[in-house]
């Protein structure tokens, strides 16, 4: 059942990303409709980062994007018929890489929030 749960998480992450992407598009590309003209300037990034809502948004978005992306990447690698032991290695490697990415991202987000 583990693989079913992993796959379901992948779907769930995809669903979350759908909304996050919508929010992302709104924030960065349609932002002038909301009166923000330079969404990527240091000031506006920091201003957003210090809102609790954005903190949650970033943390969830980060986890979902990393999980969804790496799960999909692993699927592609698996199609190369690597053999069981190499497959385990790849999975472990991706888990470590994913964890590092999420941890680094989280640390940056939290630090920005706390500043």
């Amino acid at each position: 059942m583990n693989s079913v749960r992993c796959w379901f998480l992948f779907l769930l992450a995809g669903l979350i990303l759908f909304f996050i992407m919508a929010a992302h598009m709104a924030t960065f590309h349609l932002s002038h409709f909301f009166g923000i003209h330079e969404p990527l300037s240091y000031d506006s990034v920091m201003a957003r980062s210090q809102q609790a809502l954005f903190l949650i948004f970033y943390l969830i978005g980060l986890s979902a994007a990393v999980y969804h992306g790496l799960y999909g990447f692993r699927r592609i690698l698996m199609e190369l018929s690597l053999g069981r032991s190499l497959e385990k290695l790849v999975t472990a490697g991706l888990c470590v890489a994913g964890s590092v990415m999420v941890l680094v991202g989280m640390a940056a987000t939290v630090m920005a929030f706390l500043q």
Partner: protein
Amino acid sequence: MKIKVKVSRFDPDKSPERYFSEYELEVSEGMTVLDGLIWLKENADPTISFRYSCRMGVCGSCAMMINSYPHLACHTQILEITKSVLVLEPLCNHANVRDLICDFSAFFEKHRTIKPHLLREDAEKLDLTGEISQTPQELESYLQFSYCIKCGICVAACPTCATDKEYLGPQALAQAYRYTQDSRDAGGDKRIEAAAEGHGIHHCHYAGACSEACPKGVDPAFAIQLFRKQMVLRSLGLKETRPPAGEMPPMTLNPKPNIPKPPEPTIK
């Protein structure tokens, strides 16, 4: 009408090279690709090798690539495919061993790994006094998926099978769902494990080519989606696991009209 037939040839005894042999064939209305091939073998070139048996789309022997699409040769009328050139090649995604013949051992083995039979704890205890109940609706819920003739066409059409040799493939996965969905079965968890782990059901890319190619209307892609849904619901504990249907009580006496009795013995 005369058409040109190009047949892919390969004989490992002679040469490792594949090549095409070309023949002329007089085609009539209603003639199937298999009819054409048999005519060629009997009249033009007895060395063409291909599998065939039932010639009515039930045995699954004669699947091949016909003008680049996987079809059953006996189920395909030539004039519906072409009026000029017919190209026959061995099935994709199966190892070619000679001419139009492919090795199916891996394919059959995958079918076996998904436990294609009813699994229930009480199997040994059931005596043979009554049938197990199964309503027409319960039957309907899996019947379509049991039409599979193991011809290998879905695997030839599947893009995942093309790259991942270990992928269980649409045939085996559809059969896993067929048995799990059977109201007489209680082996869902075991079969889900067999179908989901490793290169199993989650490798499906939703291409749907299997369902389009299937000559028997099995719709393996649909089975895969339904199976995935069931797997998720089970893993989240949202689907109650039902006990397998039990034996029905004996019928009450209800004689049909006009049934004769066997005549009295006239010997002894």
